[in-house]
């Protein structure tokens, strides 16, 4: 199955980008174009999820999955924090910042997983997009709580940046286009479908080309990641992914959606959370959390994680 993944153009473009950066090629995707693609991908996935929920309605599965997602995002940082402190040897602040990343989710990992699973007839339910959006922020709160546990009084400047967290671009875009999808329904979606559906996988290829470049450069430029942290950047997603997949199966989700919940749990944020951490914990070292989540966990999930948790969900389901 991993081999299967490795012949998909989507993954191959990621590998191409990764190799190009390791070879120190001057290949680069203009930032504006990369950001445009990420906006497109989020709008597309939000719309499609919303349209799916518009036709299925609000089911009990949706509600159960939403609660499970919220709980996972809130609780997974606790385990990660313990590992990062004990085994990883990080300071309380750095450990809290990194833990928040692993509790939150990576939109691109989810999108790639959806594409690959759908290609195998394992497309997750539309409401998983809502779960994705819900899982972005709780981890930020628990990460900050862990980082500041035991401190007397947090000064105003360093408190949780509630406003930024709740109105952050990816949350607004996902929730907003999900809502538009729900309102417009399949009929309203039809006229915009050519752009948001037909072109989707091609754009994902080019976006993953860029993510490969960014991930490998991040890996090469990082100076502060010890071997223990490298090990954790692979162990934590496996652990989280297993917990997520088992939870998904246990609460009765279909196989594909349980796999998707596992992948969400395994994925680490590299958009919303770094921005929030830079604001709320400026003392935490961005070199550590970006190298781990973007340089190691992201490629691991794209190439191995997706297949692993899909296989696990099929075994359990």
């Amino acid at each position, binding site marked *: 199955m991993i081999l299967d993944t490795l012949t998909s153009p989507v993954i191959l473009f990621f590998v191409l980008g990764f190799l190009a950066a390791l070879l120190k090629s001057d290949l*680069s995707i203009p*930032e*504006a174009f*990369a*950001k445009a693609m*990420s906006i497109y991908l989020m709008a597309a996935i939000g719309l499609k999820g919303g349209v799916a929920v518009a036709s299925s309605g609000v089911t009990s599965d949706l509600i159960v999955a939403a609660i499970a997602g919220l709980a996972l995002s809130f609780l997974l940082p606790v385990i990660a924090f313990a590992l990062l402190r004990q085994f990883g040897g990080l300071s309380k602040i750095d450990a809290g910042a990194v833990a928040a990343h692993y509790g939150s989710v990576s939109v691109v990992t989810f999108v790639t997983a959806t594409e690959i699973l759908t290609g195998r007839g394992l497309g997750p339910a539309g409401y998983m997009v809502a779960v994705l959006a819900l899982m972005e922020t709780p981890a930020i709160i628990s990460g900050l709580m862990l980082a500041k546990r035991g401190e007397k009084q947090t000064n105003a*400047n360093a408190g949780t940046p509630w406003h930024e967290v709740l109105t952050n671009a990816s949350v607004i875009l996902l929730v907003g286009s999900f809502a538009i999808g729900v309102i417009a329904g399949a009929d309203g979606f039809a006229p915009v479908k050519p752009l948001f559906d037909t072109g989707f996988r091609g754009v994902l290829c080019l976006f993953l080309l*860029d*993510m490969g470049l*960014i991930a490998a*450069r991040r890996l090469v*430029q*990082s*100076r*502060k990641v010890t071997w223990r942290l490298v090990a954790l950047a692979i162990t934590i997603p496996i652990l989280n992914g297993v917990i997520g997949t088992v939870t998904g199966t246990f609460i009765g989700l279909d196989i594909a959606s349980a796999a998707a919940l596992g992948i969400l749990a395994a994925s680490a944020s*590299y*958009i919303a959370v*770094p*921005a929030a*951490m*830079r*604001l709320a914990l*400026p*003392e935490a*070292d*961005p*070199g550590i959390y*970006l190298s781990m989540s*973007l340089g190691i966990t992201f490629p691991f999930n794209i190439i191995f994680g997706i297949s692993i948790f899909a296989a696990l969900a099929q075994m359990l389901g």
Partner: protein
Amino acid sequence: MIQTVMRKRIEILVDTPLAPRIVAQLKAVDISGWSLIHVDSGGGRSGEWQHDDVTGASAKTILLVIASEAKTEKLVEALAPVLDSYRLLLTISDVQVVRGERF
């Protein structure tokens, strides 16, 4: 000859996500103007970076501020506590300004 006055030119290199915080500090010391200059990439003791809009967290920006000497001193005092935790690079030089009354 046109009249010029001496003012301070302050350059603050800051992580883009933190720039609004510095702007808030400017306003707090009654400096009313600033400009954000686009920085493409750079390197320092903590490694190299490129501007990248996807994970905005690793981009940096230069805040350019023209201010009077008095306000500049106030600003430096105000920024002192975060200079290290925000990893700011702060430089100050002298400039002649035309229409300098406004600073």
